[in-house]
């Protein structure tokens, strides 16, 4: 039976800037950063309290199952903000929101009260958007 989620894939347009965003701004830890040859890179990060959940920062580039047309479509969709990749939670939304703003994270929605708690929406530097929530206890 399925027991847990261990890998989550986020498509990014540049792995260097994604590294800076997820590690230096969001405060995630690097799990694996391995060169794969020919300029390719396997880069995964983990949230502070989930060291076993690897978030793969997957570069959209030609190769393997991604042909030129697919890459072009993916890049367009990511830049448009099509993909809402995940919901992150925090213990104090206002403090986290203030900190991320200070670090230059762009928010699509300021902290707002919802029936499940409080929520803000931010985007990464590729265009993916995320919910940041402080859930009702």
């Amino acid at each position, binding site marked *: 039976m399925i027991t847990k989620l261990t*890998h989550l*894939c986020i498509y990014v347009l540049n792995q260097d800037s994604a590294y800076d965003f997820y590690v230096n701004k969001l405060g995630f*830890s690097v799990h*694996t950063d*391995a*060169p*794969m*040859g020919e300029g*390719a890179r*396997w880069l*995964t990060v983990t949230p502070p309290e989930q060291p076993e959940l690897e978030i*793969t920062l*997957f570069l959209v580039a030609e*190769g*393997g*199952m*991604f042909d030129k047309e697919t890459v072009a479509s993916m890049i367009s969709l990511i830049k448009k903000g099509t993909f809402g990749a995940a919901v992150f939670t925090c*213990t*104090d939304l*206002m*403090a986290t929101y*203030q*900190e991320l703003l*200070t670090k230059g994270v762009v928010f699509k929605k300021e*902290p707002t*009260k919802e029936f499940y708690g*409080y929520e803000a929406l931010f985007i990464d530097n590729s265009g993916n958007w995320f919910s940041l929530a402080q859930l009702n206890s």
Partner: protein
Amino acid sequence: MEQYEKLYLYKRIVQSKLFIDKNFADNIDLDNIADQACFSKFHFIRLFKSIYGRSPHNYLVSVRIEQAKKFLIEGDSILDVSLRIGFDSPTSFTATFKKMVGKTPSAYRSQAMVKRLAISANPLLAVPNCFAQTHGWIK
């Protein structure tokens, strides 16, 4: 939410937290941080704890230990790491590290280096096959 009416309190506490993040290796005077945030020490600790779930001192120690892990993975000596992150001695660093991480800095470094060498020799060890195939790294 009444906390939103006290946005200025959040900003001051967040700035203090960011100061600790940036200056963890220095001999930080938490009394001074409280003064700069315009709080009494008691009030500062209480607010910090209510937001971050731990005292400013405990948070500072946790930041130092997390940074220590990064230096250990790079292969730095225990002495160098302890000095770089602001501990008075390797002994106090080792004791704190073991208490928080569950293993000694030496054991942590050894395990990290073994993993690093294995992945360096064969990066595909770290990649689930489905992703390796998607990328075209294996057929």
